[in-house]
């Protein structure tokens, strides 16, 4: 079984993904059987399947690197359980690099 997830990259994150601002992906419903796929699994899956180089600009200490905000269905992932959030079919997940310019 697989889950369809919409991924978006913004604030410069897209430059790590060939300038793609979004991607519809299919991921296994259980990347680490028997556990359902969670955000932790998804982040590693993205590193292994979508990110081609410089993983340090995306991952640090087994989570997204400092300065990246993750949104799950238009909500700060901290309100949804962060790494433990279980991915659901149809989820809309955004990785935003915070901007500092003015």
């Amino acid at each position, binding site marked *: 079984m697989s889950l369809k997830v919409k991924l978006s990259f913004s604030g410069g*994150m897209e430059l790590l993904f060939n300038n793609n601002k979004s991607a519809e992906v299919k991921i296994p419903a259980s990347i680490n059987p028997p556990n359902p796929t969670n955000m932790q699994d998804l982040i590693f899956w993205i590193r292994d399947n979508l990110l081609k180089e410089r993983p340090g*600009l995306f991952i640090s200490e087994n989570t997204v690197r400092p300065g990246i905000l993750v949104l799950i269905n238009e909500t700060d992932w901290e309100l949804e359980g962060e790494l433990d959030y279980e991915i659901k079919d149809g989820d809309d997940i955004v990785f935003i690099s915070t901007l*500092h310019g003015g």
Partner: protein
Amino acid sequence: TGSQQLSLPEYLRYGRQLILPGFGLPAQLKLRSVSILIVGAGGLGAPAAMYLAAAGVGHLGIVDYDNVETSNLQRQVIHSEFRQGLSKAYSAKMSVERYSHRFLTPDKDVNHMCIAYNILLDSSNALKIIKAYDIIVDATDNVATRYLLNDACVITGKPLVSGSALRMDGQLTVYNYKNGPCYRCLFPKPPPPETVVNCSDGGVLGAVTGVIGSLQALLAIKIAVGMDDPSEPHNLLIFSANSYPPFRSIKLRGRKKECAICGDNPTIKELQDYVQFCGSGALDKSPETMLL
């Protein structure tokens, strides 16, 4: 300070606001008595300063340590060709005074003023300046100053209207306000210096800074006059000029109990060395590597 009435010139000047539903005389008097500090007189600070002054904010402070350069003029519309080499803070003050009657013919009863601070804001001077203002607008261009402003606003209990812009994108939120998060609640650790890009290196379109800076003025006005909607969640506005839809509003976490500065048991009680903390400072215009 000042009377609780408007003068006839003020009625004529602010008529379009006085008739706004839910605004009126009380709100205009609040704007006249509020003090707002704009940190950064660049792309974001330009429209923020213009719209705050135009709306009748009685006391504006503008902080910037840079001078006006040719490459600024593509977006920093508060400066001009003739001001090259002049302090940005003074140039912004001059522009604000140009269309603000109040600053030119001050009413002795009313404490109207615009102060330019041609200084580099750091741990040694930030608290003293910030203490004197009611609302702080973060229109800066580097991570170290963003942490500095955050910590100073938490320590002094001021709302921080934070905007940022890069390339075709912008972000906007209010920190340390109504039990919402501070910058450290969202970002306890600074980003690796090699992932940080400023406008000099990444580029930015002027109209993008115009949108975000105008929205910063609007948020500061709403806070000053108490117009904000109690049912509105803590949120971050994301703007991307080449995405559809261009604006998204994101619901944010509240204040975090474990936050090092605004949490229940703060470990940070005074300002830090932010250049060391971030690995780069306000004057580092071009970090060695820039990818993001």
